[in-house]
């Protein structure tokens, strides 16, 4: 049975029609799930069902792994020279560019982010695929210096079939961050997109077909975490798994990997990132970046700057301007050009965020701004700020993943660095100060995989991104991501050593 999805967009931001094949994408074909069941895809703006997509099972994962292994052994892996892998990835990026607006519209429809921000995401996704296309024929090993009786060199080989599980907050961008370095290095893929936001991933499958990737190189199995995701994490024939999502699920993935075949694991998990604003910061700039740091993507960002530390000398002024800035955020329809914040992605997330807001109030924090639902339909939440918090409060410790932040007054530099680092997380951090020495010194002391100086949430395809501590294992983006997908083999060639 062949399924398809069609949608007519008639909005102020975008008018157009999307129409494409759906289903699980295995071995170059769209197929039903083996149980013939389906998952509802909900539009978070209205709370209504847009369409149904095939539900994958562990049996479908097996089929996908077999297809991926076959492709790896015949048409991909080292059978496909780097120059060919490069061409196909470049072709894919060109197709994404051709269909950029449609992809952005699908993303806004499915995830709830504004069309404008979805365009931003798709540009970044295109750039990522292009960037890794350029690496494909540059996977170098080393030759080490030895004496003339021996030659030693390394090969950076593809691992084989890799499993990739991505979240719902930046569906298309996360899809590209995962597939691009894996394909560039010659691996084949079984990918599980989030069951909340599968549409752009499914749309990409048609582009992958059109670009000319051999069947089985990229397989997409939509389904639930506890079935499809679990099957992948414990699969005996998947030799590497890459996961982006919550720290809670990340632990389960790593546990399953350990219990099954010790597959290699990279994780991109949560954060409770500190944003430190010193007295000598440019206040207007700091306010603008802090707002972007906290509220971008409706707070649904792993590296969101959710703990804003402001030095006492400018605290009042900062809070005043930050509040004004936050009030300017227009919450509404993602396709209305004046909207800056759409709905949260699902009922589950909505409920979770609202319960954190409740906990903040109950634990005695001061609700400074927002705190309520916005509107009466869909999962909209007002931009929310708490002040006068205590470090042990849940809203200060735990990742909320919504447009909810805390602003904390500090005095002493050493103390704020201690407070900033006092978290199990270590994904990102930021420092605002016009004194470059202090800014760099503090940035270097923060225990985070990304430290922003006088900016926030700037991400580039060529700069690595990942977490310290419980925020993750491994790095994505930049040259560093290639290590996640290569197996190093050392070859020792005896040229004259005799063994008696």
């Amino acid at each position, binding site marked *: 049975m062949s399924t398809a999805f069609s949608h007519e967009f008639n909005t102020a931001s975008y008018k157009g029609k999307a129409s494409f094949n759906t289903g699980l994408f295995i071995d170059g074909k769209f197929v039903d799930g083996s149980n013939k069941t389906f998952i509802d895809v909900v539009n978070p703006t209205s709370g209504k069902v847009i369409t149904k997509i095939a539900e994958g099972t562990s049996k479908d994962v097996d089929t996908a792994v077999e297809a991926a292994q076959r492709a790896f052994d015949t048409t991909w892996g080292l059978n496909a020279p*780097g*120059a060919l892998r*490069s*061409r196909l990835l*470049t072709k894919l990026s060109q197709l994404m560019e051709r269909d950029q607006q449609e992809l952005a519209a699908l993303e806004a429809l499915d995830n709830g982010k504004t069309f404008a921000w979805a365009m931003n995401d798709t540009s970044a996704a295109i*750039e990522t695929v*292009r*960037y890794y*296309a*350029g*690496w*494909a*024929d*540059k996977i*170098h090993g080393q030759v080490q210096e030895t004496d*003339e009786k021996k*030659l030693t060199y390394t090969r950076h080989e593809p691992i084989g079939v890799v499993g990739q599980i991505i979240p719902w907050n930046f569906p298309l961008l996360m899809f590209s961050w995962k597939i691009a370095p894996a394909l560039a290095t010659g691996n084949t893929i079984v990918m599980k997109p989030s069951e909340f936001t599968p549409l752009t991933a499914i749309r990409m499958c048609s582009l992958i077909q059109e670009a000319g990737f051999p069947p089985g190189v990229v397989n997409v199995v939509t389904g639930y975490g506890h079935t499809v995701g679990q099957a992948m994490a414990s699969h005996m024939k998947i030799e590497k798994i890459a996961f982006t999502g919550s720290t809670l699920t990340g632990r389960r993935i790593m546990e399953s990997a350990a219990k099954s075949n010790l597959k290699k694991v990279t994780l991109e998990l949560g954060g409770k990132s500190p944003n430190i604003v010193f007295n000598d910061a440019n206040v207007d700039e700091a306010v603008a970046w802090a707002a972007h740091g906290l509220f971008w993507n409706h707070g649904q960002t792993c590296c969101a700057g959710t703990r804003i530390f402001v030095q006492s000398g400018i605290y009042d002024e900062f809070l005043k301007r930050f509040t004004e800035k936050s009030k300017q955020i227009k919450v509404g329809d993602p396709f209305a050009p004046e909207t800056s914040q759409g709905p949260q992605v699902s009922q589950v997330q909505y409920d979770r965020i609202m319960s954190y807001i409740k906990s903040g109030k109950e634990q005695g924090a001061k609700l400074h701004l927002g705190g309520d639902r916005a509107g009466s339909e869909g999962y909209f939440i007002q931009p929310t700020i708490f002040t006068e918090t205590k470090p042990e409060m849940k809203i200060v410790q735990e990742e909320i993943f919504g447009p909810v932040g805390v602003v904390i007054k500090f005095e002493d530099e050493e103390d704020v660095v201690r407070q900033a680092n006092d978290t199990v997380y270590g994904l990102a951090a930021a420092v605002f100060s016009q004194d*470059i*020495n202090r800014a*760099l*010194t503090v940035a*270097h002391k923060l225990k985070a995989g990304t430290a922003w100086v006088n900016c926030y949430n700037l991400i580039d*395809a*060529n700069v690595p991104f990942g977490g310290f501590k419980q925020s993750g294992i491994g790095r994505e983006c930049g*040259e560093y991501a290639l290590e996640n997908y290569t197996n190093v083999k050392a070859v020792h*060639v005896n*040229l*004259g050593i005799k063994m008696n």
Partner: protein
Amino acid sequence: MAQPVSVRIPALNKDISLPTGLFINNEFVPSVDSSETLECINPSNEEVIARVVAASPKDIDRAVAAARHAFNTTWGKNCNGFQRSRLMNKLADLIERDAQELAELETLNNGKPVKVARDFDIGDSIQCIRYYAGWADKITGQTIEIEGTVKTAFTRHEPIGVCGQIIPWNYPINMMSWKIAPALATGCVIVLKPSEITPLSALKIAELVVEAGFPPGVVNIVPSLGPVGGAALAAHPDVDKVAFTGSTVTGRKIMEAAAKSNLKKVSLELGGKSPQLIFESADLDQAANWAALGICYNSGQDCTAGSRVYVQDSVYDKFMEILVSKVKATSFGDGFDDAVAGGPVVSKTQYDRVWSYIESGKAEGAKLVLGGEKRPGKGFFVDPTIFAEIRPDMKIVKEEIFGPVLSVGRFKTEEEGIKIANETTYGLGAGLHSNDASQCMRVSALLEAGSVWVNQYNLLSNNVPFGGKKQSGIGRELGSYALEEYTSVKAVHWNIGEKLEWPL
């Protein structure tokens, strides 16, 4: 003068417009002060194809100034790698689109067969530009730990600046792409002087540079005589680096001029007298094929031409028999004839030069085994020629001929073979043929050449470096290594907290 002319492309049966002016600041312009032109001849029939403007030293000044201006405003540090990458990929796509007509233009001017020009020269050029487009956004420096809390140090790999690039006539389009690609990827700007014999394809590609969207002044193309334009670039006080491919004689002059002017950085890709060793365990049929390729490809006009072949005594007679029959089967003719394996040599000068070496071989007593007879009629055709029973002191053994003239010798032991192979001031390429893996390892380790081929010859890849040892050159092209030729490393020492006491 500087108006485009019409050139007939025979196989496509159409006329194309060929720009004839100097390409400066994205425009085709006449010379500021000279009426000199370069006459471009079709070496297959000795007819004039077109005349193009020849740049004078003042024109070179203008081109360099345009490049410098672009470097300071739209290129260099004013654009990022992602932008450079996109433009380069666009240029590659355009060359791919126009591959057939560029190939025919190349054949008209250089003589090589059309399908070779299209599928190899241009195919490799497109791939080369794409390869370096992929590097453009990956030029990274290092951060280096010194004293973590008070000082941070890092390197920036900055573009060198204005690069003078002088290329030869044997692979016009391919040599152009080897030069411009790594330079553009790293953010450098270019003044390219194609050979005065074969400037046409470079001028045609200049149109694609504009179409791709490169800002004016980033790429400038100034055909000119070597002693005029080439010398001017090598001595120019505002050119930061000169890259030259050509004869060792000219390479010396370039380096001298660089030293005497502003100590500009120099990279050189010069001549060779590359040897191939045929060991007794080799697959003789295959080895003969590679040896034939080595001397016949591009009619021997290749810096890594395998112009000396040494055969181990025990298999000499057998190998020679196979080799002669392979080379004999190689026919040279008009590049538009699909059946030919190679074309004429590129010009009258080269023709006379190659023949004088053939005569010298006869005069010094080498044994002529194949060829050695001039063809009647038009065209600078030199048929494949093999000399045997050579002595190391013969001119045909010591000097680079740059034509399809092969010298074959013999050796007894591996040591002797390596010694004879290395007995040359050159060190560009070398090949060895053997089925003994340890021998392959040993011999490849000891051959003094920038590229060593094992059981193969002359096949290059865009991602593997290429260049000469000894007097065959300085620096490397291709691979990641070429990027070093176009980057200038700046170390930044950043004090983030150290106070100095003075006096210490």
